């Protein structure tokens, strides 16, 4: 009696199906509880991996809800790579379509932020530009300046106060009343999350997309003040080169 890996895998992921016929206890009868060890290992290890990957999502919905939801997710989206550090890429879209999670409408944005934090943590190292690099540029050339961003930089758009929702559930603090798109940077080894205004996010998005500074500023209002955004990007080592 041959047990195929298709048969084994199908039974592993479906708790309602019986174990494969060809698996045995030491006394020769079909293994039931022993097969459940593997079934349990798979479900628990993937659930734990998701819990470690999305701690704020888990905190927002509660542990029981999260583990039940993870059980649905891991069967719909088992990992497709042994590199588990990025497991959960489909979580934002999954949460957006998961009925029981609809009462927390910002969950997909939080999941996007938590994914970005992991990508940032493992991103390539890069050398930032000097804080005074822009001062070396002739003023009439500034509108033509384009920036390259560090590979660890991620911008998460949101119409919710995303940064302070995240902060309140990690280090504490109040949740803002305005939209806070989140900027993820990695000044050295530990990713950081900063709040942007919607305008700052639009300008940052344009700069990340390679638009020259003058053109990117048109994504903001007429009175948009570039100073605070540029100061933040420089202090977070987010910019790694500039061209005129």
């Amino acid at each position, binding site marked *: 009696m041959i047990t195929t*890996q298709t048969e084994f*895998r199908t039974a592993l992921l479906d708790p309602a199906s019986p174990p494969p016929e060809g698996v045995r*206890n030491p*006394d020769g009868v079909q*293994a*039931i509880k*022993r097969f459940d060890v593997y079934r349990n290992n798979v479900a628990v290890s993937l659930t734990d991996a998701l819990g470690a990957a999305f701690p704020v999502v888990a905190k927002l919905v509660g542990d029981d809800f999260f583990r039940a939801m993870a059980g649905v997710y891991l069967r719909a989206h088992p990992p497709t790579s*042994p590199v588990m550090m990025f497991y959960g890429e489909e979580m934002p879209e999954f949460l957006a379509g998961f009925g029981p999670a609809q009462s927390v409408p910002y969950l997909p944005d939080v999941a996007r932020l938590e994914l970005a934090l992991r990508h940032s943590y493992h991103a390539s190292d890069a050398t930032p530009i000097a804080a005074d690099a822009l001062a070396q540029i002739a003023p009439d050339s500034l509108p033509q300046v384009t920036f390259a961003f560090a590979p660890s930089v991620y911008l998460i758009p949101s119409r919710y106060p995303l940064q302070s929702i995240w902060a309140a559930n990690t280090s504490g603090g109040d949740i803002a009343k305005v939209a806070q798109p989140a900027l993820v940077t990695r000044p050295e080894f530990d990713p950081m999350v900063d709040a942007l205004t919607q305008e700052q996010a639009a300008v940052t998005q344009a700069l990340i997309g390679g638009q020259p500074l003058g053109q990117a500023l048109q994504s903001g209002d007429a009175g948009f003040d570039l100073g605070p955004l540029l100061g933040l990007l420089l202090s977070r080592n987010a910019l790694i080169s500039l061209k005129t």
Partner: protein
Amino acid sequence: MLDATRHPSLPNRPGVGYKAQHFNDIMKDAGPVGWLEIHAENYMGMGGRPLAQLRHLSEQFPFSVHGVGLSIGGEGRLDADHLARLKTLCDWLNPASFSEHLAWSTHESAFLNDLLPLPYTAATVTRVADHIDEVQSVLGRQMLLENPSSYLAFAESDMSETDFLSEIVTRTGCGLLLDVNNVFVSAVNLGYSPQGYIDDYPLNAVKEIHLGGHDEDEDETGAPMLIDSHGAEVVDPVWALLDYTLAKSGPKPLLIEWDTDVPEWSVLVEETKRADAALSVLA
């Protein structure tokens, strides 16, 4: 067979499975720890702290790269992308050893994040040997193959695990990673003598030994069932099985594996002192 002499080997001393939270402790005082092992898949990012820590530690310690996701026993082809990632890591770190498991974990592109069991048959020998040939050829180095913790057997198996491993060594020239906790767990679970397993095992191919903790449970008939957890101290019968093995094999690199509920560094150091003592009585 590959030329294994190009890379220095692991020392016959205790090592530990490296965890990032122990970085400062290790740099300050490593105790009897003479080498470190990493799970390859945790170091497949592009940069940041994990690779920076390895860069520092590798100046001081020989490394063992231990893969947990290659699915060497899989029915399908090896994942070429994953094998390429392993090669990138090994070429960069130049570890003293690379090892993987006698198990499968990926099937039809789904990775199940567990080491799943194989039937021991001639067909499985051929498949596993072909995959090991491919790994050794791509990596350009010998690999070590680790015996699994088993909870069940297959009706179709018609050879012992030790005969299976001997055949694999003969066909591929690979080395072996002997996990004595896995031997103990499988022996209790499947009802054979752990010492008898060691007697039948090709000890001359062993280049590393693993030690770890397990949990105790029982199956639906009330028979004892041990679960490999890597989350506790090594138990006395496993230390005794280590002594039994070392008396026959001579000194080997000994690894303390502790992957879940990872304790403080001092707890790991106590385990490595016990491993060190097991080695020193051989001298």
